[in-house]
């Protein structure tokens, strides 16, 4: 296995500009290329599912129920077979990418924005502001997430946006902690002190001088956690507490196929494979970005 994935040291020979460094390191790292390719395929599936899915994912034809992969009927090929209602599994897996990515990207976006903002304020102002924000972080992190998510969904009824909000509610703390740590170091640096001395406002210092310097860890954390969010969303769907049917979700497909495990192995195999490959892709990209952009994060 290529050591760039497993090892955590920065390659000193890479160019100093981050964009060029990323591109240069990508060329020589087959695992990063694999990760980026996987995520691109999933993204394309999610964006263009109506065009990519060979058959309507909701079309039920009972006389072709539970047919194995490569089954043919009326000139149509069911590459991954069909489910218990005769729906095309490949089309449903392609559509399933939508929910996983919407949840993963939206939750990351919301959590990243809140965490970034509160982390900046907390680190820059310190004192009471810092104390309150950090106690909020401790408080959220002290809860067992999955149980509280289950309890909340049980009472408020499952929906896509409730899941996004719940995940974001947990995730912002991770960003806030790391941004705060970075800001604490940056705010004492000479260029910040000199901007302050020359009359620069707090707003200007925070958003123009500090913010660009804490974006790298934010990107790294976002990519490292993307895979985990996909698993959380699928897990909730698997328990029947995710995005409700008829929307195809990978976890939902698995839950449906579970009852037919003994007779139709493909119904549970392919959606699970889709989740695993997506998570693997996200993890490989996360490892690569961390190694290039912020190797210190490994220890956190």
């Amino acid at each position, binding site marked *: *296995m290529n*050591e760039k*994935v*497993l090892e*955590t040291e920065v390659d000193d020979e890479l160019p100093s500009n981050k964009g060029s460094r990323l591109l240069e390191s990508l060329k020589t790292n087959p695992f990063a290329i694999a990760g980026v390719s996987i995520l691109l395929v999933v993204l394309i599936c999610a964006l263009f599912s109506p065009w990519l899915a060979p058959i309507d994912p909701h079309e039920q034809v009972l006389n072709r129920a539970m047919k194995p992969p490569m089954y043919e009927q009326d000139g149509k090929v069911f590459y991954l077979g069909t489910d218990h209602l005769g729906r095309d599994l490949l089309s449903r897996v392609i559509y399933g990418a939508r929910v996983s990515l919407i949840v993963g990207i939206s939750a990351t976006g919301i959590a990243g924005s809140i965490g970034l903002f509160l982390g900046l304020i907390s680190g820059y102002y310190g004192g009471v502001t810092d104390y309150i924000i950090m106690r909020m972080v*401790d*408080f959220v992190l*002290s*809860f*067992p*997430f*999955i*149980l*509280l998510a*289950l*309890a*909340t*969904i*049980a*009472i*408020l009824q499952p929906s896509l946006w409730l899941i996004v909000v719940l995940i974001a509610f947990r995730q912002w703390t991770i960003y806030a902690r790391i941004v705060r740590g970075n800001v604490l170091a940056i705010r004492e640096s000479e260029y910040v002190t000199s901007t302050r001395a020359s009359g620069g406002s707090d707003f200007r210092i925070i958003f123009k001088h500090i913010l660009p310097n804490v974006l790298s860890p934010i990107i790294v954390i976002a990519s490292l956690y993307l*895979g985990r969010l996909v*698993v959380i969303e*699928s*897990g909730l769907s*698997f*328990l*029947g*507490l995710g995005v409700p049917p008829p929307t195809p979700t990978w*976890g939902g497909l*698995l839950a449906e196929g*579970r009852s037919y*495990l*003994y007779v139709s*192995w493909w119904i*549970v*195999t392919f*959606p*699970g494979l889709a*989740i*695993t*490959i997506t*998570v*693997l892709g996200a*993890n*490989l990209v996360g490892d690569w970005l961390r190694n290039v952009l912020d190797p210190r994060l*490994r*220890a956190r």
Partner: protein
Amino acid sequence: MSGFLVRRLIQSVILLKCVLVFVFLLLHLSGDPARVMLPDDATEADIAQLRNEMGLDKPLFTQYVIYFKGALRGDFGESFGHGESAFKIVLEHMPATIQLASAAFIFSIIIGLPIGCIAAIKENTFYDQGVMAIAVIGQAIPDFWLGLMLILFFSVHLQWLPPFGYEQWIHLIMPMFTAAMFHTARLARLMRSEMLEVLRQDYIVTARSKGVSEIGVVFSHAMKNSSIPIVTVLGIDLALTLGGTVITETVFAWPGVGRLTVEAIHERDFPIVQAAVFLLASIFVVINFIVDILYVYLDPRIEYK
């Protein structure tokens, strides 16, 4: 140190109280708890009767005081489905969860730590790269899918292991492996990177140059110093495994608190949900508290101000 302990203890108690408030407020967030608890076809008279029985017609604060006093005695009301004390039913399901979580936790330590350690010692060999490749994939496989694949392979195909059941040790194998996979893979990767970092330190070079054997270097010098981040992760893992066996228990129909909770959610049996969330959250808080104390013993340099 004692000041830290007291402060940390107070923090834990506050957290537990917050959990109680959260569980109380959760039902009220939905608007009318009586309506949430009853089936959709319940009549207005049924709703009014339940509201009266549960004291939901009293002011919110009075309800909270009654609820809080009850919760302190472990009284979360009667389960709708079982007709018994909800807390008692949750407690009865606790041994199965503890059995599964502790088996998975011990498995991840016994397997994850040594393979990570050996991978670091044999850095860049075929063993190292092979094990780490498996660990990277192991971290990506979701537990619910892994469980189903194990059933498909070992129960349906090979017919070696029973897919469900609880009575014999053989029933524990697949659930344990499923619940442990992610943590084992993560521990192995973390152990390897921590060990590699420690093995590059000057004092290790000194120990080697003084003629200390490789086993001596690893066990008496490197192990303890790479253990602090490991203990952090282990503590988090133990708490997560206890709260996170929900999915494994559902896949293997394991009679633990996780499966009980999911079933209670589907049956709208909220006293059970409240009691289970409170109990597992309490265990989570207590484990975090114990882990914090452990740090002090492991690394006297850590200061608690």
